[in-house]
């Protein structure tokens, strides 16, 4: 499990974990990880320039660490990952650990960790999907499975159109044309195995932007992304395990902004980001203890026209140790963990976490955790030199910045009647200090506004959630969830902008013979204003889908869905594509 970096079943996980298993029947009409998560309560959607991401515990997307199979992802610009660019079909499940997790994962894990676990088994399949909004995607998966070795190969492509904002020439998140491949070879022996990963993709993002002065500009990002990695594991006596990972992730982004009417180029920028990550993990059971320790080295390099210098480099070395202590016949577990990060940009940072789990019987569990999180200043905040020519201001990095840090408490109580229903009640409180904000320095010699970043703010979020899973019969299944959020900027004593206080969602599914009918709806209250907010746009949002799938036999699966059933347009921060009819077809020739 992501929460402990050790294997656990979902119920037994000592750290509260939300797991979204990618279920073929009810999720056929979604094509990205973003769409899967956007429906969940407590996970708020944030529209970014380059795509969409998720806010955890009311904290912005930059405070969420996104991992693929436990490893960091490159290509994060504007501080957030575009979860729309991650194809859902290659994903087996998504695990979300809410709350500070820096004691295991290091920087960025303030709001929590989203770990996307890819499908590893070889699955021959062809999938096509499209909707009446002009969105199309296709995937071919194949490979071979031998006795001790296997190779899984996926090739995919998609074409998403940008979404036009109401009453404006501008578009919201970018349109995307993307194709790529993922190859995972694996070899297993008696007491060791080795897994590789090769990924490559090319993507063109396009959008129309409107400058505040009214200029209509077209932007285009050409992004090339590649990953190469190897992960050998050695299984030792007494169930101990030694795992090594080495991965290089490279992302290139050519950005052009043109005046739409004449095509005159306004801005051109090239950015290349490289992350080299290696880690060594040692897991050892020792009586009532399960020790998990490791060392991680991350080397980041960025070359960009947007920097104060041509290229910047930083290296981070971290050591962590976690002990899972099981007492009273596993009814009680206590998990302390500590991580020390040494960063070439600033000295070091210590993060601690303590989790307790008490499960008096098989039907209930109480979990309490205290965690510390931190977020190292990004390259952008440290070294950026950005000039907004179409608007007219300059933003300059500040290499004196220190990490933002947080403290967080999470409480969770789960109750179930095994195999029938389950209820979960959770609450959290987070305080972040040394928040990095842009501040106006002064006008420069040419009269231009000059902004930089400083560690000045404090913020607090708190909330509660309630979830209910209720199979009403063999066929009917209901999942219901409610989330409440309180979020405040402690420096200015105002509500944090653009957050909904309440969110409610349900998924109702009905299965009969080969048919599955599912209805998913999420409701979000009007976003909280503060003195700067434009109240005119604030309204509650309801977004829902209705899908019907038919499994003909083990080879064919058809699905049809109405997305955005109520015809909601969302709001300025959660743009919902027009109502559409979508179709998908999955063909599994043989297994």
């Amino acid at each position: 499990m992501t929460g402990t970096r050790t294997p656990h079943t979902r119920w037994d996980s000592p750290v509260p974990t939300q797991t979204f298993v990618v279920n073929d029947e009810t999720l056929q009409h979604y094509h990205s990880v973003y769409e899967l998560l956007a429906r969940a309560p407590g996970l708020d959607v944030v529209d970014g320039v380059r795509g969409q991401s998720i806010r955890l515990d009311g904290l912005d997307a930059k405070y969420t660490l996104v991992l693929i199979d436990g490893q960091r992802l490159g290509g994060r610009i504007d501080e957030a990952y575009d979860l729309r660019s991650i194809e859902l079909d290659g994903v087996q499940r998504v695990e979300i650990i809410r709350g500070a997790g820096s004691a295991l994962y290091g920087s960025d894990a303030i709001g929590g960790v989203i770990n996307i676990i890819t499908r590893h088994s070889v699955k021959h399949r062809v999938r096509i999907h499209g909707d009446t909004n002009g969105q199309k995607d296709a995937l071919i998966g194949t490979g071979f499975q031998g006795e001790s070795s296997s190779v899984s190969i996926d090739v995919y492509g998609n074409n998403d159109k940008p979404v036009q904002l109401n009453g404006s020439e501008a578009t919201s998140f970018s349109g995307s044309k993307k194709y790529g491949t993922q190859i995972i070879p694996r070899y297993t022996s008696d007491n060791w195995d080795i897994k590789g990963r090769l990924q490559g993709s090319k993507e063109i993002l396009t959008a129309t932007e409107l400058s505040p002065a009214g200029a209509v500009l077209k932007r285009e990002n050409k992004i090339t992304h590649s990953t190469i990695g190897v992960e050998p594991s050695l299984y030792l006596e007494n169930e101990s395990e030694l795992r090594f990972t080495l991965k290089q992730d490279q992302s290139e982004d050519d950005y052009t902004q043109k005046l739409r009417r004449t095509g005159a180029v306004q801005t051109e920028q090239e950015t290349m980001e490289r992350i080299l990550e290696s880690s060594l993990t040692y897991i050892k059971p020792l009586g009532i203890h399960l020790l998990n320790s490791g060392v991680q080295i991350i080397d980041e390099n960025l070359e960009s026209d947007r920097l104060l210098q041509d290229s910047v480099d930083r290296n981070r070395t971290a050591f962590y140790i976690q002990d899972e202590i099981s007492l009273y016949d596993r009814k009680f577990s206590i998990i302390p963990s500590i991580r020390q990060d040494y960063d070439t940009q600033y000295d070091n940072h210590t993060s601690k976490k303590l989790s307790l789990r008490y499960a008096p019987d098989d039907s209930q569990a109480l979990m309490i955790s205290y965690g510390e999180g931190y977020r190292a200043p990004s390259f952008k905040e440290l070294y950026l030199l950005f000039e907004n020519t179409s608007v007219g201001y300059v933003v300059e990095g500040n290499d004196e910045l220190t990490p933002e840090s947080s403290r967080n408490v999470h409480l969770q109580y789960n109750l179930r009647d095994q195999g029938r229903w389950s209820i979960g009640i959770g609450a959290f409180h987070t305080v972040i200090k040394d928040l990095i904000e842009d501040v106006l320095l002064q006008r420069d010699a040419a009269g231009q506004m000059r902004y930089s970043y400083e560690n000045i703010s404090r913020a607090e979020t708190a909330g509660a959630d309630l979830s209910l899973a209720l199979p009403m019969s063999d066929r009917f299944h209901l999942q219901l969830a409610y989330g409440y959020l309180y979020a405040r900027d402690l420096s200015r004593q105002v509500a944090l902008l653009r957050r909904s206080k309440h969110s409610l969602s349900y998924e109702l599914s009905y299965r009969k013979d080969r048919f599955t009918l599912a209805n998913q709806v999420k409701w979000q209250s009007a976003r909280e204003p503060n003195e700067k907010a434009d109240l005119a746009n604030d309204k509650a949002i309801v977004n829902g889908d209705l899908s019907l799938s038919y499994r003909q036999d083990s080879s064919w699966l058809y699905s049809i869905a109405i997305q955005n059933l109520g015809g909601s347009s969302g709001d300025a921060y959660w743009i919902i594509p027009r109502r559409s009819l979508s179709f998908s077809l999955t063909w599994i020739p043989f297994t």
Partner: protein
Amino acid sequence: MKSLAIVSVVLLALTQFACSDSGRSSDNNADSNPIAAPAPVVDSTTTLPPAEATTGEGDAIAEPPATPPKDSAADVIVYPVVALGIDATSKTAWTHFDLDSGKVVAETDVSWDLAFKRTSIKMNSNVKAQVLRDTAFEAVAAAPAGAYTADAPVVGGPETDGLFFHTPSPWYEYNMETHVISPRNSIYVVKSNGGHDVKVQIVDYYNADRLPAFIQTKSHILGLSAAAE
């Protein structure tokens, strides 16, 4: 990025003069927003000089007269309103504007009166000006009395310190939320180095495509009344 100098010229037809009982120019037409109208993109050297009232062949005149043309039969000498978009996109080089000819000129041409660089505006050393706050362009018919001030640049300070167009407050307002620059509702009356009183309005910081630092100006050499002389 290569910038084009976009020179927009609106030459108002001088439909009437010499009528002792009318005594007005057709200046009112300038209200129909000359900036927003599709402007011909021409080389800055083709800027039209002030038309001479008596000939009606404005573009045939190569050089503007140093002194206002006078028609003995007329009460009023009227210069056209010059609407000019000035490319001030360079962060290092100033763009120079000669109010007397209504043209962008080279830095070496000593006849320049105003110079523009992004949001900065400076005046030539032999130029003085007075500002009329909350005033409409049309409302200024003659150079007001009172003090006219020259730029007094502060050595070592920000380059806009002490410049008339930036003192005590700059010619524009800056919206901190949107970063949009809007001119204040002011008319500058400039005593040019060509000997004219010229009213100048900064109409916009943006061109028709709404790109910044293409400063849209409107200027008018204030005509001399023959009767007043």
